[in-house]
């Protein structure tokens, strides 16, 4: 167990290192960031000054060394646009805005997927199954940001502001972006629950439970779903990660003041410290979620050995 944890931790550190290193060199190999930081009429001396402030006048190995020493402490330099420490900006946008949105969307997409998938499986090839499958197919084929626009069109425009289209602050602001973000994962989860349930419902212990007169609800949710839930855990854990990345675009649609929108807004201004810090935080979260999913797996299914 301990060996497993240590190996996975090492692997996680490797992944995060790989990601930040890739971004570090990409930024520097594809042109001089300093050129983008000063306005077009800047003199050579002004550009040199900007380069010096960013540490770009040092050799590449030197810069990389300094970066590797500073990054684990969360020091990614100052945001070019707002002059605040990049990491502080990133954390301010991650919590609470992005976490709130991602968690609510992840809950929506898993909690609703279970009854939908079970219903679909128990009524295989029936009306409910067809409707749920068609719905899933549609939601999976639809870009989330377009669904967001349609929701705005429906709730904020046609229904005259039943729900707010932009901004944040109250729970009513959270509904539309959370639904838009949850839709595609919900569809995928419902398909997974259905497939898992179809598999489990054919097994002997389900027949036994029914034969001895256990109520159908209990059979479905206690006996069958518990066993179908195992692959579902992986997907749920990972979907929380993908919620965070989906937030990049959904936050932009709804002007939600989160980390995704911060990164997108940093792009045209070439605010590299913010991009690097944001990418670092995203990678950390992904790695942590992956590890958590593996551990949860072992807790739920004693047959899984961590080695």
């Amino acid at each position, binding site marked *: 167990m301990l060996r497993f944890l240590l190996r996975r931790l090492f*692997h996680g550190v*490797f*992944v*995060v290192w*790989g*990601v930040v290193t*890739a*971004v570090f060199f*990409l*930024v520097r190999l*594809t*042109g001089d960031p300093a050129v983008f930081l000063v306005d077009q009429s800047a003199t050579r001396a002004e550009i040199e000054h900007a380069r010096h402030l960013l540490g770009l006048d040092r050799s590449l190995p030197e810069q990389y060394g300094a970066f590797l020493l500073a990054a684990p402490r969360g020091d990614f330099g100052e945001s070019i646009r707002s002059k605040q420490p990049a990491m502080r900006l990133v954390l301010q946008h991650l919590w609470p805005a992005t976490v709130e949105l991602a968690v609510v969307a992840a809950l929506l997409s898993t909690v609703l997927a279970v009854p939908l998938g079970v219903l679909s499986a128990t009524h295989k090839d029936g009306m409910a199954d067809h409707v749920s*499958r068609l719905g*899933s*197919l*549609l939601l*999976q*084929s*639809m*870009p989330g*940001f*377009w669904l967001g*626009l*349609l929701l*705005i*069109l429906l709730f904020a*425009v046609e229904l005259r502001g039943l729900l707010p289209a932009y901004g944040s602050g109250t729970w009513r602001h959270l509904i539309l972006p959370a639904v838009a973000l949850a839709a595609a994962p919900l569809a995928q989860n419902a*398909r*997974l629950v*259905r*497939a898992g349930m179809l*598999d489990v419902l054919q097994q002997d212990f389900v027949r036994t439970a029914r034969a001895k007169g256990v109520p159908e609800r209990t059979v479905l949710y206690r006996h069958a779903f518990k066993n179908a839930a195992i692959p579902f855990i992986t997907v749920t854990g990972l979907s929380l*990660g*993908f919620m*965070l*990345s*989906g937030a*990049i*675009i959904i936050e*932009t*649609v709804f002007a939600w003041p989160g980390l995704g929108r911060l*990164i*997108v807004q*940093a*792009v*045209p201004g*070439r605010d590299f410290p913010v*991009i690097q810090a944001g*990418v670092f935080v*995203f*990678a950390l979260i*992904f*790695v942590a979620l*992956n590890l958590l999913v593996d551990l949860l797996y072992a807790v739920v299914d004693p047959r899984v050995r961590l080695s």
Partner: protein
Amino acid sequence: MRRGAGAAVASLVILGLVGAAAIFAPLLSPADPIKNDLLERLTPPMWSAGGSAAHPLGTDTLGRDVLSRLLYGARVSLVVGFVTVIAAGAAGVALGVLGGFYGGWLDDVLMRTGDVQLAFPVLLLGVAMLSVLGPGLGNLVLVLALSGWITYARIVRGETLSLRQREFVEAARALGALDGRLIWRHVLPNVWAPIAVVATFSVARTIIAEASLSFLGLGVPAPTPSWGAMLDEGRNYITTGWWLALFPGTAILVVVLVINLIGDWLRDVLDPRVERGM
């Protein structure tokens, strides 16, 4: 006939029609897709009050014809979708076969690189890379292909590892076949079925990813029409021009839906080992 074959045929026909519309866009378009006409701006579709037959699906905020832009926009979606998947697939299959067949440090480097990439959502990688490389059709394909190759490499590597030890490969080797022949004649023919299935689904995913990046302003630069960029341009006019948000999104939905249906069918036909999910 298997279940789903009817839907697959219909999907192929629709996809063919969209492809034809993209190729013959210059002949089919009622107007020049990048010509501004500020007097005609925000004209609604022809069946709405105030619409005109000159612009069947209305005009956008610069007075450009929406139908024409949709037809030309199909080119971007389809080209990016298919070229990306072909590039990523070719690179992934080649690297996966080499890694699986020879093992060693090459295999280690490839798989560890893949781990790093898989820890990373496509969209974030796209935003990070395109912010550095700058927007454009070539960069779009490059970024999406770079984030796609690992899926193919993993599948092919796994298959190659197990095929390498099978009797028929051993026999061919004993008969003196060279590595190149073993790979070409004995390994590759056995991996193409799962690859075809994965590739089909990833065309659909790539089209959505392209639309997302274009929506964020990182796709093909204006004024070249693309569906994602059209949605981006229309979103601030959603109260006055609902058609700007509706039509490009519907186009994406239809194309992605039919490709997913073709993928479902292919999976049933080619890959009976994969359990029928839905």
